[in-house]
């Protein structure tokens, strides 16, 4: 009964996403262009390295990793910061706050529909193509199950971070700069643009202790690892679970405190 409240938002989001068919085409074209750049960039990196394996990864390992990271990005990026920022600026947030649903949940479930669409229309086809083209490079077994769990945790962490950054918009009333900054930091430190294996040792250790790597590096490592030790998978998932709880608590508290400020001092 209670879940229906949220699933109706998912449903609405799916219908809404389908209204804008063209955007899927544009996203696909954009991705192809991005991947062409990635292909040539890394080809030259490997060429100049002079060896087949750099930092423990072959050229095709790297490429598969980055293609999947891009696909993952397409469906994980929720544009929450934009949404919150726009709602604050237009004042629509008042209407949303007057719904009998917590705003954090309202926003998440409103977006979840387009999420489902992106998963089926961009991530899944990309994954299948990559799996087919590289036949055998992606292990297809129990790791898929771990991967799904890992992605769910990643989505949760990503959303919490977005929500925290979105909350900052309550104070700054500007969105653009904050959003760009967030995107660059998250994409870099999560291993979405450069695999973390390529980071210098010091930075790598540092990054592995941050929540960001749990968003892209963790699920992709789980997916692509060949016969991983069960304990290392569990450790990765455990770390993700830890971060998803921590970030959820932080984002909820920060929002609560900020909203109080807003109700006291006006928007």
């Amino acid at each position, binding site marked *: 009964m209670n879940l*229906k*409240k949220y699933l109706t938002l998912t449903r*609405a989001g799916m219908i809404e996403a389908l*209204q804008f068919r063209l955007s899927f085409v544009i996203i696909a074209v954009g991705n192809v262009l991005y991947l062409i750049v990635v292909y040539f960039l890394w080809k030259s990196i490997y060429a100049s390295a002079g060896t087949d394996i750099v930092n423990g990864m072959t050229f095709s390992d790297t490429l598969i990793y980055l293609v999947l990271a891009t696909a993952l990005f397409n469906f994980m990026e929720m544009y929450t910061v934009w949404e919150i920022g726009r709602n604050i600026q237009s*004042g629509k947030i008042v*209407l949303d706050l007057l719904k009998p649903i917590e705003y954090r949940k309202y926003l998440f479930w409103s977006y979840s529909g387009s999420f489902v669409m992106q998963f089926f229309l961009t991530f899944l086809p990309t994954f299948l193509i990559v799996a087919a083209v590289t036949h055998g490079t992606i292990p297809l077994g129990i790791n898929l199950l771990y991967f799904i769990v890992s992605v769910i945790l990643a989505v949760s962490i990503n959303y919490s971070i977005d929500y925290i950054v979105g909350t900052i918009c309550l104070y700054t009333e500007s969105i653009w700069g904050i959003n760009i900054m967030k995107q660059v930091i998250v994409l870099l430190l999560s291993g979405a643009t450069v695999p973390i294996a390529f980071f210098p040792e010091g930075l790598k250790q540092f990054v592995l202790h941050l929540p960001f790597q749990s968003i892209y590096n963790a699920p992709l490592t789980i997916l692509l690892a060949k016969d991983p030790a069960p304990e290392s998978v569990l450790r990765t998932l455990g770390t993700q679970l830890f971060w998803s709880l921590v970030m959820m608590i932080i984002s909820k508290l920060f929002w609560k405190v900020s909203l*109080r400020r807003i*109700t006291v*001092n006006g928007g």
Partner: protein
Amino acid sequence: MSAIIEIKNVTKEFKVLNRREGLKGSLRDLFSRDYKTVRAVDNISMTIEQGEIVGYLGPNGAGKSTTIKMMTGVLEPTSGEILIGGVVPYQNRTKNAQEIGVVFGQRSQLWWALPLIESFRILKDIYQITDADYEGMLKLYRSLVDIEPLLHKPVRQMSLGQRTLSDILAAFLHNPKIVFLDEPTIGLDVSMKAKIRTLIHALNREKHTTVILTTHDMGDVDALCQRIVIIDKGKMLYDNDIEHLKGFFGAYRTLKIRVDGDLKAQAEEIGKALPDCAVSADEDWISVLVNEEKQKVMDVLAQLQKTHRIRDMQLEEISTEEVIKKIYEEGVQ
């Protein structure tokens, strides 16, 4: 009848950064802690019964929206007490949300890209409306307005009037105890205004919903409100029946005359001759606002006939609009 809204001595203050002028000033503002306190709402009290339609009036910036935001729970009062159906709204925003509906004239709560019926379905689930109640409400809507053509139209393709109508229907959908309508008829044509007024009136009658209406259109007030509350600069100026308000200023009548020659110049002349009356001129008429307690309209007319050749005349009882205008400009004595 029981009180649904109780407001006691509510005051709301905002801290506003003192802005300085120019580039240099703006740079200094970055580090400024120089706040001043603005009192948007100042010691307001009122009690509203279930089923009333109350016109909440005041000039722009009077503090109307702030009061409404406090009643909905988006803002917390600096001092004083607000109870909506016995609940403190800002402490129980989610619970309060079940009991209220909101329409802001310039914004829509509907799902932009979806047909109206989808928005209704979403709201049905969000507010956990039972199937029976939902169907009952749609049936009522069908009996009041012709919604069939709207239901399957995406909201973004609607005209402003259709969208406002839809927004009002959406606000009443979960059968809230109170609906706040913030300038619902803004920017609408005459026939749409009439349609919306009829709709609000019918919904209030059928569902016994309390309606708080803010508007600048006195047509809305005349058509809908038995009671009006006027505030200005955060202070309450008036809270009583609309009939009482007219009685209050009822001694005023407007005499309109048409004379030959330059109306502006003659209006000035008449103004000097009649110190107790307010005289103004537009393209066709000279208007003389007469306070009948001081001077009878017939006497004024007789006096004017001596000095001017009056070609035509009209006598107007004062309208709500003019009363409100007078209150905004002069306050209540």
